[in-house]
């Protein structure tokens, strides 16, 4: 893990990394840059190496080839995909947050307020539902006042309106603090709408760029099929861009509220 020069704005730069577990190659020649104030979304099918790439960015795994550079003194807030709490450890939500931010009771309360779970402060962590746990984890990540926020499948186990609120909150945090955000998702629901850069990953980077550019890229369609996740994406595009049809698939209806052939 080398450091980027101090005058460089880039938070993390991944250069041509490769990683294999035994004979099975997980990542091959993958590059990625994360900038402050920008939301980057990593999409790709299950087992495409998204979480592994995130672990490289986080410094939890070392690459076999290539290198990962980070800005000196970079503070990262991390929200793992899920966190299994053993019931043998009695831990209230407040104590759980204290592990990341000792001392500041006020800050912990504010962070929970922010993610809409202030009422859970005195509850036992092991008794939380999946959605509640996600919000508590997000509060813990925000408490660190991160320069970079890394979220692994943040929408898992959250209903659609909850997802909408979650992505809204992430946008707000980005606007207020100017932090960079790296999101991982295996579905395309809502994600494309709130992101500045999309990286399509399937062991290598298939395509990357703005959501519009990626959605027009043939590589993207090869990866997700002509209709995989498309209706939701189309809903969004309809809202903001009437100039092009996303898939070019005649069976696919790009219009919101349109009829569906099922």
């Amino acid at each position, binding site marked *: 893990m080398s450091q980027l020069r101090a005058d460089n704005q880039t938070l993390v730069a991944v250069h041509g990394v490769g990683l294999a577990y035994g004979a099975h190659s997980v990542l091959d020649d993958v590059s990625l840059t994360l900038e402050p104030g920008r939301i980057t979304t990593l999409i790709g099918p299950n087992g495409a190496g998204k979480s592994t790439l995130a672990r490289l960015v986080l410094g939890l795994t070392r690459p076999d080839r290539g290198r990962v550079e980070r800005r000196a003194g970079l503070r990262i807030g*991390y929200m793992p995909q899920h*966190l299994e709490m053993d019931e*043998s450890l*009695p*831990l209230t939500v407040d*104590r759980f947050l204290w592990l990341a931010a*000792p001392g500041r009771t006020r800050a912990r309360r504010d962070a929970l307020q922010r993610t809409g779970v202030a009422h859970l402060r005195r509850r036992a962590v092991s008794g939380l539902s999946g959605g509640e746990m996600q919000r508590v984890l997000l509060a813990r990540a925000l408490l*660190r006042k991160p320069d970079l926020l890394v979220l692994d499948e943040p929408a898992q186990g959250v209903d659609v309106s909850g997802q909408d609120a979650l992505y809204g909150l992430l946008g707000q945090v980005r606007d207020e603090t100017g932090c960079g955000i790296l999101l991982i998702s295996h579905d395309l629901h809502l994600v494309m709408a709130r992101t500045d850069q999309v990286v399509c990953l399937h062991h290598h980077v298939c395509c990357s760029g703005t959501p519009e550019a990626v959605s027009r890229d043939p590589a993207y369609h090869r990866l997700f099929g002509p209709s995989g996740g498309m209706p939701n994406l189309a809903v969004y595009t309809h809202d903001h861009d009437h100039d092009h049809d996303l898939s070019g698939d005649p069976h696919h209806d790009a219009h919101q509220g349109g009829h569906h052939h099922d």
Partner: protein
Amino acid sequence: MIELLAPALLAGLAVALVAGPMGAFVVWRRMAFFGDTLAHGALLGAALALALDVNLYLAVVVACLAIAAALVGLQQQRQITGDTLLGIVAHTTLALGVIALSLQKSVQVDLFAYLFGDLLAVNWRDVLALWAGAVLILVLLAWHWRALLSITVNEDLAQVEGVPVTRTRLILMLLLALLIAGAIRTVGVLLITSLLVIPAAGARRLSRTPEQMAALASLLGLASVCLGLTVSWYADTPVGPSIVVAAALLFGFTLLRRPDS
């Protein structure tokens, strides 16, 4: 009576005090079998100490750390799982320890005392050493408390948040080895895990924070030592097992309380 019992009582209390928070970590991190394996290996350390005529506590700590290192190395391969490995190492080192002890020509070794402890045989020098060790362990625990708790909750999160995960894990291992070295003469190799696990398990049902659980585990351990020694004195039962049975009884009482949270 009190002059006779005082060193035993003070020695037992020192071990129980530290076994509280250490036992809490053993329970949280599911290290019961691991602690047991270290304790079994401690017997080998004790045998080597006698054979080489070196300090017993030092030899036991070194033996525990060597076994912990060997386990970490053995776990690199994946075909034999962790608990099987622990079973192999625990019983092999125990067997080797018993053989090594039986080969001692110069001194008559009371194997029973190593296996089940001989609290009544401790002298004031032992008491002093035990309390010095207890204070050392408690200070180190308090110093690294948040890091230890962080890696117990989730090692990935802890590492991203800047906790030195590997170092903290090593510290926990070292503290466990120190405790086992101290406990080998008091409760013995076979009973040390119970003094770690039973009070901590009893404390779980009465606690809402990790600190409460650690402190309550200490209290339950202290009570078990007092109770066990008293029973042992009046009923002439072996001390170590009496303490463990007392701990188990207290644990039974905590089951009567409905769990909250």
